[in-house]
């Protein structure tokens, strides 16, 4: 009971107060001159984003013992956990945060010192490093009572969460989503649906609360609305200049990942959408001088977001769309409040990464056309093998299909050791020069 009061107090009173104080202190700090003046003005909603995510991690510090805690993959059906009042931690989101704050290195090394190969996914290594007690910008993550992994983003999560289950000795529920070669077969959807129901049962047992279908439907509707709002935010970039960059999107997607299925999430995206529409009306772009529009494929290089963005912007290249951020908005229509289980089974199996290469080509071509991109950067991500395998052919095919110039950028989404500054610079220069 005391822990619950502490948690709620942090969520509703202390946390917001602390963050207000932090904002005040930040505002008082002397502003450094902008390193990349070619970037557009920052989004006003960034302040709210910072507060929401900070509050999420801050309250998380007090969550264990107060409310049930689940660690889940980004593609897991969180709608099932919301009605049971779980505090949900997304290790991928946390690892991205570590990457963006340049704090992932020691966590990766800690996992490696315990025998995990540097060839394994960086997110997984970062997360395992955190589980082993490494220092995190979030302060600490609450210990999970339940682990939920969904293979719609990769099989890696299956292996990675099995290690977490071994470490924490808590139940692991796996939602095994068969890979879609074309459209799903009825038995595949039935299989996923049955697993979703199992998740509800196990989550209910762990939370010691009965399952309430009404609440599930409410969370599903909220999740649907959130994804649609996110998609609308992305689609404001049809305007020229595009009001925000893909680098902004990588940051602002934290809410759809970590708080999906909540009113808080939807209210945030309504505000963001208003701001983006206003920018479109006033002709404000994500970069100062948009001459070329680029699509990004794969996860971002979290530790180089700003410098990559600035480097491209300095030559008038606006990286303003990505297959990664698009993935959180593309299956919203498949959710269905009249048959939530079946709807979720369909929506969670149709994820971009769970589908074949012809579908990837179709989505990329659509995005290139929708946003009138004249170039595509495919991040060949050493850490993310399922996203990267096929990119060499994809690069050629998307160029043929859409007439866009393409380049393959070798890096890693979180491991700085895979970043070779000189090589990246040379390739980027050559790519940008090819537009002359």
């Amino acid at each position: 009971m005391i822990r619950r009061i502490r948690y709620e107090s942090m969520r509703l009173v202390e946390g917001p107060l602390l963050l207000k104080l932090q904002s005040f202190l930040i505002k008082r700090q002397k502003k450094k001159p902008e390193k990349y003046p070619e970037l557009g003005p920052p989004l006003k909603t960034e302040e709210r984003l910072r507060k929401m995510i900070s509050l999420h991690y801050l309250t998380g510090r007090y969550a264990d013992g107060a409310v049930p805690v689940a660690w889940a993959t980004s593609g897991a059906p969180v709608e099932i956990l919301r009605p049971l009042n779980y505090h949900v931690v997304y290790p991928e989101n946390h690892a991205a945060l570590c990457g963006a704050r340049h704090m992932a290195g020691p966590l990766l090394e800690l996992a490696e010192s315990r025998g995990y190969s540097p060839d394994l996914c960086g997110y997984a290594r970062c997360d395992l490093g955190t589980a082993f007690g490494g220092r995190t910008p979030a302060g600490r993550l609450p210990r999970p009572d339940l682990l939920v992994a969904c293979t719609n983003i990769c099989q890696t999560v299956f292996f990675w969460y099995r290690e977490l289950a071994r470490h924490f000795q808590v139940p692991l529920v796996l939602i095994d989503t068969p890979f879609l070669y074309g459209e799903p077969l009825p038995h595949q959807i039935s299989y996923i649906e049955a697993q979703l129901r199992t998740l509800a049962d196990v989550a209910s047992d762990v939370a010691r609360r009965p399952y309430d279908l009404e609440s599930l439907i409410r969370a599903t509707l909220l999740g649907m609305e959130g994804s649609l709002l996110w998609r609308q935010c992305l689609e404001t970039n049809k305007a020229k200049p595009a009001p925000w960059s893909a680098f902004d999107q990588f940051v602002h997607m934290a809410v759809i990942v970590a708080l999906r299925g909540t009113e808080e999430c939807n209210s945030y995206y309504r505000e963001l959408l208003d701001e983006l529409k206003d920018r479109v009306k006033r002709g404000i772009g994500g970069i100062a001088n948009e001459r070329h529009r680029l699509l990004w494929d794969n996860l971002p290089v979290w530790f180089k977001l700003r410098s990559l963005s600035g480097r491209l912007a300095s030559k008038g290249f606006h990286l303003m769309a990505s297959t990664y951020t698009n993935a959180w908005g593309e299956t919203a229509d498949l959710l269905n409040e009249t048959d939530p289980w079946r709807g979720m089974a369909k929506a969670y199996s149709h994820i971009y990464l769970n589908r074949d290469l012809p579908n990837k080509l179709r989505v990329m071509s659509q995005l290139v056309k929708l946003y009138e991109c004249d170039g595509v950067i495919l991040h060949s991500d050493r850490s993310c093998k399922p996203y990267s395998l096929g990119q060499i052919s994809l690069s050629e095919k998307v160029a043929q299909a859409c007439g866009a110039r393409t380049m393959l950028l070798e890096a890693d989404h979180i491991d700085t050791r895979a970043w070779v500054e000189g090589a990246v610079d040379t390739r980027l220069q050559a790519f940008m020069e090819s537009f002359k």
Partner: protein
Amino acid sequence: MGRIEYIQKQQKEHSRKVIGALPVHYPKEIFTALDVVPVEIWGPPGLKAGEGAGLIQTYICPIVRNAMSFIGSGRADIVDGLFFPHTCDSMQGLATLIPDWLNWRKPVFRFQHPRGSHRPEALNYLRDEISLLVRSLEKAFGLSMNMARLHEALRLHKEAEGLIRLLFSRRLYFKGSDRELYSLIRQGEFLRVEDHIPLLKKAASEMADRPVHKAIPVMITGYVPEPMALLDALNAAGAMVVADDYAGIGRRIPRPIDNRLDDAGGIDAVIRRYLSLPPCPTKTMNPQSRIPYLLSLIRESGARGVVIHEVKFCEPELFEIPSLRKAFESEGIPVLFLETELETELSSRTITMIEAFLEVLKKNTKGEAAA
């Protein structure tokens, strides 16, 4: 007879269809029952870069890269179709890259086994996947599944597996080297089980009455015994493999304790056998099941040490290494970890590591004898 001659013979003399099968787990009995011959593509090792090699990044596992190169360069054109089990992300990617974008025009079959396959929903799904595979093969090649033939296929595979188990359990009585033993077992990667059994029987019948090797017994675990030179190096250093947990060898042999074949018929028997396979990181959900299994394998075989031999970039295997090492070391079992690609020869560094490991095992053995 080499693979190519064998494949041609099956196609020309027996009008059988031959399928190029990618690793690792699949219900082989189904192919046997339909009289389709799966010829497995494990890389292959030591391959010169072919047409498809440049289409996959170098940080993807060499089995997938080499398979891409092998098939892309037309060297697999002899087969009548390709088969992709759902092993890992990379294999899953290959199963779209080759048929969709590599101009592969022959039939393609896929088998997506469930992860954590003992759950009720997983069993229903597994049944549907196996049935789908049967229907796909029937449709593509104009075949028809016969339950009597399936029953016979199950019997044959059980017999072959029993012989392989015998060869390992009485390893020190088998006169040949580890390379010879593994070569014999691995002929099952392309021979029909009917053709494999006589070879296994012959080897079993030629075993000596008493142990013929004075080597230190070890267990080996990993993905695939390539390069085979690794086995030569182990033998040369004074070790012998008495227990096997390679995904491609030992983990494909159902455990007899669970193998209640007689209780079930048809597809149910195939499912039971599938569920009786030893734990494998590519499909087993329970993180606690593998270590007790491996420790019992070590105990029963009398292995004095463990060689963990992995293929570089193999995610399912690599995630498990720390807990395996910890478990073995806490039991006082020496462990050697080796990571190789599909090269043809071993590096001198690897050979030195093997020699040093054997020195430790020999010292331990002497110490125990003195005590």
